[in-house]
């Protein structure tokens, strides 16, 4: 019962925060709203008994990515006049609504293969075995490391003063 209540609170606040990202006129407030949405998603991971992912979500999104976004907002502050929309606002709205409708209809009408098995908890050790263990995902982990290194180097090269 507590799980259901917390899901609904997290879902409603998360959707309102996401709407705030899109509809708030002030860019900085939109970024704060995005951080609230990230926090709600971390809570949703906890309701899905993904404890490690919730911690990663808070560390990476709430900690790092939001700081980067706020930094970018502050460095480009002189040119920003709020958060204007382009000419495609109404077509974009219609496309988003139609996309949502198609998605929801498909989701409701698909017979998912749901098991009633209880979730694994805590997940950290099991995830580590999955990632680094025998027959696991060690090659993607290495590739992810290379990707992060190249992304950091690329960001430094792009953002450096000439």
């Amino acid at each position, binding site marked *: 019962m507590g799980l259901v209540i917390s899901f609904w609170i997290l879902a409603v606040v998360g959707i309102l925060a996401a709407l705030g990202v899109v509809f708030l006129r002030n860019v900085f407030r939109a970024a704060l709203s995005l951080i609230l949405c990230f926090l709600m998603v971390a809570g*949703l*991971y906890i309701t899905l008994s993904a404890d490690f*992912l919730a911690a990663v979500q808070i560390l990476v999104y709430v900690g790092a990515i939001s700081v980067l976004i706020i930094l970018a907002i502050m460095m*480009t502050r002189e040119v920003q006049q709020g958060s204007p929309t382009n000419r495609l606002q109404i077509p974009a709205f219609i496309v*988003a609504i139609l996309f949502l409708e198609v*998605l929801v209809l498909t*989701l409701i009408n698909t017979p998912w293969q*749901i098991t009633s098995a209880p979730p694994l908890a805590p997940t950290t050790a099991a995830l580590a075995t999955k990632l680094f263990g025998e027959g696991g995902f060690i090659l993607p982990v290495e590739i992810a490391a290379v990707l992060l290194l190249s992304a950091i180097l690329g960001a430094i090269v*792009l*953002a450096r003063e000439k």
Partner: protein
Amino acid sequence: MTLGLTHYLILSAILFSIGLYGVLSKRNAVIILMCIELMLNAVNITLVAFSRYVVPMLLTGQVFAIFVIVVAAAEVAVGLAIILAIYRGFEDIDVTKINLLKW
């Protein structure tokens, strides 16, 4: 009432659609990047929900979500660096005015 897979999937569909609307309709490049992050988060919710309700002992969805987070972090770092570089050259980050590549 109980929580099911469909609740999480519909929630993430709503979040994804909000992000899609923002990406298509905004002019500020930073806002567009924020909306892309919103869409990636929605996809992550879907992956974790499938992992919880379809294969709860395998955790493959959570592993995939970790890789999505890694790629999202790389993407946001490079994206914001590109936005700063454009800002230096153009003194503007309005994507409707950045049309050097437009034919």
